[in-house]
């Protein structure tokens, strides 16, 4: 019994972290249809900025996280205006090459400025304690991540499915020229969505850092993980990413408890099975 509870608790906590670190990609790649391999670079920027603000400037965790996310969004805005606008229209392979190039630039930049060792983001005391669940203890930051994940999924659902902005965005993605002819300011919608994606990447980088620590090579080290969550969830579906992240988190945790020697194989076999049966992902649009 306690084994099942352990798997459930750890699986959900891990799944939420997977969700948090890949949700930004779900927005840029899933919704905007730009193969944004630089997603990890924005997470790295957010994490590195938070590290620098806490460790070097002495800010509190909350203030540093907020500033870091805003700084990442500002950089993303500039990049969108200068570079990404040209990338939207390119073919898939060119998008891959362009965005991976951007990733390398950011890796080199962080490496130059902060070095290639781990960049710790120390948590405030209330997130560092352990919470007693009765049958075991769970670190408070994992609970915070679960909470943050729930807030993000609810917020995104309302923004994209229920708000006017969401309608415009979906229209713009589905048919650019008609949406534009109907008077939707496509440039503004895309810029705002891209910044949102980058901001979420930064948030995920900072909140996920307890499990996936930030260092200069972060974007490449976890790129496969981000891409798996988004492709299993289905392009263009926030709910799909959420379900995929939770399912993969629970599956991986369960396999590590039950058959630890095959943990990684189970994970990738499941990914292959899902994509073989549903090539567009769990909730992907045909």
């Amino acid at each position, binding site marked *: 019994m306690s084994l099942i509870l352990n798997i459930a608790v750890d699986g959900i906590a891990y799944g939420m972290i997977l969700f948090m670190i890949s949700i930004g990609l779900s927005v840029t790649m899933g919704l905007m249809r730009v193969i944004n391999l630089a997603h990890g670079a924005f997470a790295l920027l957010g994490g590195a900025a938070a590290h620098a603000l806490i460790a070097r400037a002495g800010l509190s965790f909350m203030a540093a996280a907020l500033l870091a996310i805003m700084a990442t969004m500002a950089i993303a805005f500039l990049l969108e205006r200068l570079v990404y606008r040209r990338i939207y229209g390119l073919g898939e392979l060119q998008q891959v090459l362009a965005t991976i190039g951007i990733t390398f630039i950011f890796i080199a930049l962080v490496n130059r400025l902060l*070095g290639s060792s781990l960049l710790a983001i120390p948590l405030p005391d209330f997130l560092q304690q352990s919470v007693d669940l009765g049958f075991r203890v769970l670190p408070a930051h994992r609970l915070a991540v679960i909470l943050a994940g729930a807030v993000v999924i609810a917020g995104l659902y309302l923004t994209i499915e229920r708000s006017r902005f969401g309608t415009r965005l979906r229209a713009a993605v589905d048919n650019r020229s008609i949406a534009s002819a109907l008077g939707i300011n496509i440039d503004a919608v895309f810029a705002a969505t891209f910044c949102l994606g980058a901001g979420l990447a930064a948030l995920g980088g900072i909140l996920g850092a307890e499990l996936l620590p930030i260092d200069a090579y972060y974007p490449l080290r976890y790129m496969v993980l981000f891409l798996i969550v988004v492709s299993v969830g289905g392009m263009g579906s926030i709910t799909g990413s959420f379900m995929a992240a939770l399912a993969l988190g629970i599956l991986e945790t369960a396999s590590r408890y039950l058959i630890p020697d095959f943990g990684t194989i189970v994970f990738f076999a499941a990914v292959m099975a899902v994509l073989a049966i549903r090539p567009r992902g769990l909730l992907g649009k045909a």
Partner: protein
Amino acid sequence: MNNLVRAALAAAMATLCAGACWADTIKVGVIAEFSGPFAIYGKQYKEAIETYVAQHGSQSGGHDIEFIYKDVGGANPDLAKTLAQELLIRDRVNYLAGLTFTPNALALAPLIEQSETPTVIFNAATSAINKQSPYFLRTSYTLWQVSTPLADWAYDQGIHTVVTAVSDYGPGIDAENAFKAAFEKKGGKVIDTIRMPLATTDFTPFIQRVRSQAPNGVFAFLPGGPPTFGFTKSYNENGLAKEGIRFLGTAETEESNLQALGDAAIGLTTAFHYSEAHDSDVNAAFTKKLGELSAGAVANWASVGAYDGTHLIYKMVEAAGADGPKAIEAVKSLKWESPRGPVEMDPKTRTLIQNVYIRDVERDKDSGRLVNREKGVIATVGDLGWTD
């Protein structure tokens, strides 16, 4: 000045030049990582070499010494071999050095055998490398060298049951075998051996498995960086220390990532050959100079391996100039005081005989930084993994 004196002087100069030839340049090729995920190693080697040069001058035995750095980018034996060829043929280097990864070192064996080039390994820690060529010398350590004394020490401390948790790759399995062999020989019991995939990001399931078996200690071996970070965090958060399950490690708390581990690292016990906080004049001078030359630099196993390697090269150049076989002969049982403590070259394995210290992570009162505080020497050993 008459002609006779002039002729005598000219003759003397000619003789000198033909012999030792003063002010010639001995070149050392350093093959290491200067880009990619392991770029920090190359940086640390370079910093340590520059520190040694700053302390001892750029000459040894009347020869100028010049270092040429080549970037191999990671475990890439083909590139390592190409770079070594380039260094030997085009740059005409007399010595080779660096080498973080075992495959890179192994790839060089036939080349240095042919060119009779002494090659100082700063890290690559597999025992078998030095058997491939008599021109290999190593100034790092081997896994057996630290894991075996740790097992002995743990048993003597009353830790009689242990679970081993290692990353599932070559060095991890070596460490598991070394620890298990020594621990069981002492009479201890290894209850469970866990091998964790290299790609693991969430270590909680493994930590829970350790916890449920309630051993006296957990022996861990993981590559530096994110895996170590994740494992020690989970160890701490799940309250294993409070339940009396002691952490036993080796390189996990090495200095370049120690500050990032944060308070979670306090109390972790490791057996290792070098701590930045080693209390000696040589180490104080080394770390001070290192800090002066490169602001924010930390000294760890990579720095001390390169520093001692440079010392070895200086001694070889002093004794034999560019003569490879003679150089090896001159240093193969050399003793000196290293920043890590007293060391000695073992003529058979050409690896260092050195002290293994038991250390606990503490927060230093003066600097506020985390340090590996040495609690004592638990063994003075050479390469225990060597088989004839």
